[in-house]
């Protein structure tokens, strides 16, 4: 997908997030994962590290050497995305208490991921 396509999807998901409430922690975490992954692809495409035909889906599904390569330029962003991903089995597929707090953390991480991606796009 083209870089601008990723950005458009991420921004649309972020707009939809406004409709979610306190009891929707699963989808807040999933939205952070979906939008964060689009932001990651946007950043990697803008930096020329990955071509449009090479999108990541999950950091946990990446071949180790590819994750190392991408992390050279966007290590912090990918660490934040990995932290969002680690919330999923516990609070989306699991039923641990404090889901709302976990969702707040996921959205905090998403904001940081988005900011990093926008900075990547403006880096010459």
């Amino acid at each position, binding site marked *: 997908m083209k870089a601008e396509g990723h950005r458009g999807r991420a921004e649309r998901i972020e*707009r*939809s997030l406004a409709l979610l409430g306190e009891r*929707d922690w*699963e*989808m807040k975490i999933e*939205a952070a994962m979906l939008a964060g992954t689009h932001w990651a692809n946007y950043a990697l495409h803008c930096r020329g590290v990955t071509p449009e035909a090479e999108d990541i889906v999950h950091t946990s599904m990446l071949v180790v050497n590819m994750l190392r390569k991408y992390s050279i330029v966007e290590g912090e962003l990918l660490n934040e995305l990995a932290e969002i991903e680690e919330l999923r089995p516990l609070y989306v597929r699991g*039923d641990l208490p404090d889901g709302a707090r976990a969702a707040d953390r996921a959205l905090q991480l998403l904001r940081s991921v988005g900011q990093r991606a926008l900075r990547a796009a403006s880096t010459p």
Partner: protein
Amino acid sequence: MKIDSHVDKVQRLAALRARLHPLADFELWYWTTLTAGTNMLNATLHASGLTSDDPVFSTIPGVHLVRQGDGSYARELRGPGDVSHVGWPPIKGDVPASVRRLEALLHGIEEHRDPCLRGDRAPTAAIVEECEHAFAEAMSIYQQAVAAARSGL
């Protein structure tokens, strides 16, 4: 995960689904549909005695997050429990036709995942309608399975 927890998630996700616009909010509407569907499947599989309802959480096939003695969670190799997606892992053995039908409905919804969420296919009213029909029938199968289990049938 326990059936009651799946039921709680299905109820809240179905309520959220109704607040999202199927096209304007397609990504979250679709993912909410998919997540609710996976919880319906897991509850139905537990209710049918096909998978364990142990309070452990699915990751990739064969690996679950399990509570440790110190309260933390760690990945462990486990037998059939919750699936993370329909068919991932597949359910083997003598499976009732209604459960196979539920799986087929969820596979139908899953077919739109990569093209519409990770590819360039634009969601359409026809895709929404297809997902709506599959979701409604899946809900009916799930509700019957859980009701039967709770009544001891």
